[in-house]
């Protein structure tokens, strides 16, 4: 309805392959960025920042990471939280043990550690596929959390394994207020999301999708399965690692290894599934959905005067039912719904 595409023709491949080829979309995105950077910091309350927006962005980043691996490269992983944990604890240790290291560098190094772990646990993917791989990624989950609990050095000999993330200080500025943390996280997430979008529209993204869709053919046209899968594991884990670090530094503050449990892995997986496999946008939509649903449900439960335990069980049931619902009705998730809606608007008033 809003789209007026007649006359938006492309005279170069550059213009044809831009991320938002339609002018109206570019305007929409610009507006959203303006809202995110200008309007939100002006109007949002600290509660909204720290209970909704910051975790939303962090989870979106983790979901993005998992989406690269599962949605684009077709390798199922149930160990997302483990990679997040590696990122968080590695960053913690870098800051702790290398005095004066810029926090941003520590995050990147944390991400790289996660990537290294990702490569290590991605190795089985070369020999095994499908469910075997899914089941084996659980090993990552258990092993990493076990390591963090059992090796005191990693948690700076904290008796309970709990660490307290160092102050969020960058470029000589202490990010203390929720709004400032939000803006920091927003910047990091946007940069990484852009990078992810760039990768998936380039050769490396095509290699992932090729391996996902038809691995034999991918090999025959010259993709190396090992390299492709391991880069997917590495890059995915890097994203998860950075998300994990932000989770600790910008969201929780104090964190124990158990915070990165299987449950978190599943939540991220749900974000990807509900948001849409193989879609950058889907990672954001999924994260928003999974963040908002419990809030909505607990409001709902409060409204009916239900105790918390019932609310949390209800939440699990609703999650479960929604997953099944989405798989049956729209296996490609919210992103596809969005896409369909957009197509409808582009074709409006015609149905097809």
């Amino acid at each position: 309805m809003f789209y007026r595409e007649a006359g938006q023709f492309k005279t170069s491949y550059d213009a044809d392959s831009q991320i938002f080829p339609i002018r109206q979309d570019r305007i929409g995105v610009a507006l959203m960025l303006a809202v995110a950077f200008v309007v939100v910091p002006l109007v949002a309350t600290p509660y909204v920042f720290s209970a909704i927006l910051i975790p939303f962005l962090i989870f979106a980043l983790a979901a993005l990471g998992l989406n690269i691996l599962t949605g684009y490269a077709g390798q199922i992983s149930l160990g997302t939280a483990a990679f997040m944990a590696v990122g968080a604890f590695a960053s913690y240790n870098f800051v702790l043990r290398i005095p004066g290291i810029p926090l941003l560098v520590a995050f990147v190094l944390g991400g790289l550690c996660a990537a290294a772990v990702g490569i290590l646990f991605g190795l089985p993917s070369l020999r095994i596929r499908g469910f075997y791989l899914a089941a084996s990624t659980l090993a990552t989950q258990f092993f990493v959390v076990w390591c963090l609990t059992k090796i005191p050095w990693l948690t700076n000999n904290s008796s309970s394994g709990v660490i307290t993330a160092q102050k969020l200080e960058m470029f000589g500025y202490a990010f203390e207020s929720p709004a400032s943390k939000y803006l920091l996280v927003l910047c990091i997430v946007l940069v990484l999301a852009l990078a992810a979008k760039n990768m998936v529209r380039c050769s490396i993204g095509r290699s992932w999708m090729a391996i996902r869709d038809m691995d034999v053919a991918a090999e025959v046209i010259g993709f190396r399965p090992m390299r492709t899968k391991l880069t997917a594991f590495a890059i995915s884990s890097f994203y998860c690692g950075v998300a994990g670090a932000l989770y600790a530094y910008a969201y929780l503050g104090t964190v124990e290894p158990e915070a990165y449990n299987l449950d978190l892995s599943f939540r991220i997986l749900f974000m990807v599934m509900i948001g849409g496999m193989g879609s950058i946008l889907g990672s954001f939509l999924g994260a928003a959905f999974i963040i908002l649903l419990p809030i909505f449900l607990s409001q709902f439960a409060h409204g009916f005067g239900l105790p918390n335990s019932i609310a949390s069980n209800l939440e699990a049931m609703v999650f479960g039912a929604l997953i099944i619902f989405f798989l049956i009705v729209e296996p490609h998730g919210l992103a596809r719904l969005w896409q369909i809606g957009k197509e409808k608007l582009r074709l409006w008033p015609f149905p097809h």
Partner: protein
Amino acid sequence: MAIAARKSGDVILELSNISLSFGGVKALTDISFDVREHEIRAIIGPNGAGKSSMLNVINGVYRPQQGAIRFHGEVRTDMNTHDAARYGIARTFQNIALFKGMSVLDNIMTGRNLMMKATFIEQAIYFGRARREEMEHRRRVEQIIDFLEIQHIRKTPVGRLPYGLQKRVELARALAAEPKMLLLDEPMAGMNVEEKQDMCRFVLDTNDQFGTTIVLIEHDMGVVMDISDRVVVLDYGKKIGDGTPEEIRANPAVISAYLGTVH
């Protein structure tokens, strides 16, 4: 007119005494033949004759237990599929093996992966070499799209295309690699007459315009006899004939294999 003007060059692929078996089941037995540069070489034979296995040996999907493969004069018996791709061997599959979740354009772009040199970091920031490469290869891919007349579907997800067009996209993906040698596994299977004619034209044009050597498996005898320069006939994993279409047509062993009972 086009065929008459074509001229075959030196031998570029030589298979000698190839034998292949799977767990004791012999798929290919002691097969030798060669392929000359720029020619269209057909492999024919009844079902289960080992034709696809033969192609799989040529591009390194299977490794023969015995025998040698020489490509451009060098022994390449131990190559894997990736090596084969690097040496300039591309192929299409009997059952379409496109990447279903990607658009036609992206599918064809994958064919050029070996020529893309940008690192993933460059790709992530989409700057400099990565961007330049995308544009350059896009231009080449567009020429192939133009060549195969699939402009109208370039942004369609391949899963939505009818069978005949999918076959064409698969050919496009193979051509995108600018192969020296193109292996086509039943490129015209399941097509109607019109689609077959188109495909024949594309195969001939490819051979003609790019000088690509083509090895093809095809069931349609009319097509094979029309477009190939030389034909190899397999039956039960053994070679029973080799020569020009005329020679093959006159070969008693071939006739009996095809007619079955004439002994």
